Structure formats: structure tokens, C-alpha cells
């Protein structure tokens, strides 16, 4: 039996009380192998944000299971979820979410700050953060503050931050949404090269040409996976659905 990095079974997310319940997710079955680059597409309200939140261990499914890296994380408590996020996940946000008062280097060091599995010394954390920033081409911008960096550079800092704890999974939420197309392309290039080096990436986007960079496109509609290029449906269908 093949092992998956992500494997959800009949995963639902229900909001509201008895009469007025809304199924944000109505039973999602999704498997992602290690090393895949998956794009998730869908309208707003389709449930893709809810799906990403659960995949990112920021939220828990109402029913069903979510196996991440071999561990059922669907019923973990807040502290355990925090540790999973710290160790297994790297987040890339549309709005970068860098702390403005911290330098690029300090921003990248943040995840190590919350690492409860090992006690990383300040010097180690620093050198790891420097390597991570160098890997996204910002080795010369270590001490710059976010407001001294361009949007693309800020997002690269965010990528360095996502990578610094060597998580098996990178979750990117509209990573190019706040960038012009040229800078967006640079960011996608970085994601591409990460993918080539074996990093698993799940990316939410509504831009079809960005989604094309992924080797697999999953479309979410009404809380269900409506198409999955891995299962024979082409990304084009997905695009039509989005249109």
C-alpha cells in the first residue's frame, strides 16, 4: 500500500447549529504523495479555504480523518496542532505576513523560536536562517526590514521562513495574489525549484496560469472535490468551472 503525505477520508467541516448547518466541506477524500506539487482551485465559498485551514492544522475537521505524514491529526488539541504546524508545515501567505519590526533574518528565525522538539541555540538558529534566506537569493538582505524590501523580496523572506524548519509540506495560499505577474513568476520559479528538490507543495490559487505550474490541479466545489487532474480530469475542465 502506497503511503501518502496527506490523506483525508470523508472529511467534513460543519458550521452552525442543528437547523442552520452549513457544510463547508461535505466529505473530502484527498491524497497527496510526498514530493507532489498540487494546486487547489475553486470559487470563493467553494470550501477551498476551509480545506486549506484544515490541511494547515489551523482548524480541525468535524468528522472524518486527516492523516499528515502518517499521523492522524484530526483530533489533536491546540498545543499538539501548534507543534505539527511548527514541525510539519511551512506557510506562505498572500499578504506575506512578515512582522514589520523584525529584520528579514529575525522573521525567518521565528519558527525556530517556537520549536519545542529541539532547543536551537541562537547561533544555530541564525546560521540556519541565513542559509534559508540564501536559498531564496536574499543572502544580501538579511538585516533589511520588510518595509525596505519589495513585495517579491518580502514573499521570498516568507518562503525562507516556511522552509527554515525543513517541514515536509509547504502550504501556499495565493502566494502571487499580491504581486505583479513578473514578480509572481519569480515566486513560482522558486516554488518550482523547491518542488524539483523534492518538497511537497499544496498551493491555493485562482489564477489558472499559476495553477499550470503545478503537476496536479484539484478543484473544489460546494465542499467537495469536483475534479482532480490526477484522476483523469484535465486542468482545463477546472478552468471552465471557474470561468
Amino acid at each position: 500500500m502506497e503511503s501518502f503525505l496527506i490523506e483525508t477520508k470523508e472529511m467534513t467541516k460543519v458550521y452552525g447549529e442543528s437547523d442552520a448547518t452549513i457544510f463547508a466541506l461535505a466529505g473530502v477524500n484527498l491524497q497527496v504523495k510526498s514530493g507532489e506539487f498540487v494546486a487547489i482551485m475553486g470559487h470563493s465559498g467553494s470550501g477551498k479555504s476551509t480545506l486549506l485551514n484544515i490541511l494547515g492544522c489551523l482548524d480541525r475537521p468535524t468528522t472524518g480523518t486527516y492523516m499528515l505524514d502518517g499521523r492522524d491529526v484530526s483530533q489533536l488539541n491546540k498545543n499538539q496542532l501548534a507543534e505539527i504546524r511548527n514541525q510539519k508545515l511551512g506557510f506562505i501567505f498572500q499578504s506575506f505576513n512578515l512582522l514589520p519590526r523584525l529584520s528579514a533574518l529575525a522573521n525567518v528565525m521565528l519558527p525556530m523560536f517556537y520549536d519545542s522538539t529541539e532547543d536551537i541555540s541562537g547561533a544555530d538558529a541564525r546560521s540556519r536562517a541565513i542559509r534559508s534566506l540564501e536559498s531564496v537569493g536574499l543572502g544580501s538582505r538579511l538585516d533589511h526590514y520588510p518595509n525596505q524590501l519589495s513585495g517579491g523580496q518580502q514573499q521570498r523572506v516568507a518562503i525562507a521562513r516556511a522552509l527554515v524548519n525543513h517541514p515536509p509540506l509547504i502550504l501556499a495560499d495565493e502566494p502571487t495574489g499580491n504581486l505583479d505577474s513578473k514578480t509572481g513568476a519569480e515566486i513560482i520559479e522558486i516554488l518550482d525549484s523547491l518542488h524539483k528538490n523534492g518538497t511537497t507543495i499544496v498551493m491555493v490559487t485562482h489564477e489558472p496560469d499559476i495553477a499550470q505550474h503545478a503537476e496536479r490541479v484539484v478543484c473544489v466545489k460546494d465542499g467537495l472535490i469536483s475534479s482532480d487532474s490526477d484522476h483523469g480530469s484535465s486542468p482545463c475542465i477546472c478552468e471552465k468551472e471557474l470561468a
Partner: protein
Amino acid sequence: MKPTKILRSAWEGLMLNKGRSFLTTLGVIIGVASVIIMLAISAGTEAEIAKQINALGASLVIVSPSRGVPGSARTLIYDDALAIAEEVVGIAGVSAEQAPPSQNIKANDTMLEAIPLIGTSPEFPLVRDYPVALGRYFNQAEDDRKAKVVVLGSGIARDLFGVDDPLGRIVTIGTTKLTVIGVMQSKGMVSDVDYDGRVYIPVNLVFAKFIPVMNIGPDRVRTIYVKAESPEKIDSVITQITAILAERHDVDVSKPDFSVQTQQDIINTQEATTEAFRDLLAWVAGVSLVVGGIGIMNIMLVSVTERTREIGLRQALGARPTDVLLQFLMEAVILSLVGGLVGVVIGVGGSYLFGKFGSMQTAIVPLSIPLAFGAAAIVGIFFGYYPAVQAAKLDPIVALRHE
């Protein structure tokens, strides 16, 4: 997360808005400083009272008219003092005292305005443990014949005659010319009375020359001081005085129109007042600390709201609720501890300056420093906890979406 890391991140959070952080600590600074200063003032006052016990001796009995006793037909008069001196057994001396309105004093070309004038019996220096430094005090004969003699407080002597010998010189008090026969030792301020800034004349001269006509009875005295032979005889002396005066005034011993107190009684009353005063001050200071704490809580709540997105991000990166809680709690504690520290410095410095330049005596109570500092820390934890819990409870999804 390691404590040093929490500390650092809390510090960074505070440095984000230095001005506001400082203003927030102001409440705690004032609270802590006032606790220390208030306690120093009341301790200084108590020490001052203790000093008076030593200065006046333990065997002093003070007889004064009761105020506001209904139907008290008579007040304390000079003959009461004479009766005590004659009849009471076990006393070393009696001094009747009366203070007429202040008078201007002139000697040669120097004029001092509104100088307190004290009429006393000849035994005054003995009874009040207040010796003459130069010359002599007047004797009973001089008192009886209302001799125009005066003994100057050391300050008055200096102001009128400088380095010259004042003995035998003539001073004009009001319109009466008196001969200087002595100068008292320097005694300084005791219980708000400047002994050096007064002049002492025979009490019978006061009755004859310085009590305004139409005023209170001409032989009325303000206080009769009685010195017992020893502190052990005080109780017996008090009993005798009470019996004699009750008979003379024709009042019941249980409802006298006079009061017979020891210096200790007066000190006890003063101490009780000081303690009540100190408790009040401590409460006020404590309340200001609490107000300071509420200030911290307010600012921390604002800070949590402002930094909601940051909290969400930290959660996404792996901060556990406890990490967030500790960070914000630590910020509040740092605010209050820094405030406490500054408050201690201002409190100690303020107490010192008050004592040196103010009209109040101060003695810094060593215990008040850890007490006030500890109270500040507790205030920080107590009022920082609620905002910190609010921060820790935030849902990362909601927090990340917060604008």
C-alpha cells in the same frame, strides 16, 4: 519556548511603542513611589515623636483645661499651679505657662515682628528639661513681683544681638522694656514649636502686662507642667493632681473640666493619629497601584487587538496558546516591574528630598521597597493575565484574517 526567548519577544513587543509603554508604566511608577514616600513620611513622623519622648522626659505630667466640657465654670488658673506645687507629694517642679498674643520685639535698631511670648514659672527649665545656656532664668521672687526680665530663645538672641553679649541689654516687647537676664540653649523644632524663636518671661508679668483687657481671665494658664521625681511616681502624682483640682474646681473626678496627661498619653494619641494617617496613605497608594494595573490592562487589551494578525501568524508558525499567553503576560510584567523599579528610585529619592527640604521628617522603611516592588509585580501579573488570555484564546484563522 525558553524564558529568555519569551522575555526577548516581550521586550520587542514593548519597544514597538516606547512612548505608550512609558505612559502605561506611569501609573505603577506613581503607585510604587507613593507607597514608599508615604511610609517614609509616617515612619519619620513616628521617629520624631519618639525623639520627643526622650526630649521631654518620661516623668512629665501635663495638666490642661478640657475643651468643650459642658458647664465647666472655671478654667485652669495660676492658683491651681500653686496648689499643686504645695500639696502634691513626689514632684520635682511645677511650671504654669501662658502664651499671650505674639508681640514685636525691639532692641536698639533691630525689630522682630510677631514673636511668641511664653510666660512661665521659674522652674520651667527644670520641668521642661530645657536649660539656660547663658546668664540665668528668673527666680520666684522676680516672678512674684512681676520683674521686667526676659530670657531669650537662642534664635532670638542671635537675631537681636548677633555675636554681642545680650545679658543686661534692654529689649522692648510691645511697649514694655525688659532686661535680658539669660539665653536658653538651642533646642530647635519640637513638634512644630520653634523653641529658639520664642522669648520667656515671668508668668505673672504676662498676667499683668500682656493679657489684653476684656480677654480671658487675667490669671488663666494654658498648661501646668508638673515634673514627677521619677517615672514611677507618675501614677501617684496624677491621682493627687486630679483630686486637688477636682476639689478646687468643684467637679466630679469622673467628669473633670481639666485633663491630666503624661507625655506618653499625648504620644499615644499622636501615634494613633499617625497610624490612622499612615493606613489612609497606604490605602491611597495601594489604590493608585491598582489604578496603574488597570492602565496596564487597558493598554495590553489594545495591544492584543492591534497585534491580532501578528498573534495569528505566530500561531501559524507553531506558537502554542501558552506561548502567546506568556509573551503578553511577560509584557505586562515587564511594564510593571520597570515601573516598579523606577518607582522605587523616585520613592527613595523623593523621601530623601522631602526629608531634606520639606517640612516633614522622613525615614525610608527598608521593607517598603520589596513590598512596593512585589505589589507592582503582582499587579502586573494580575492585570496582565486577562489580556494575555484573550490573546491566547484567539483562533489563528480569524486572527490571520484580521485587518
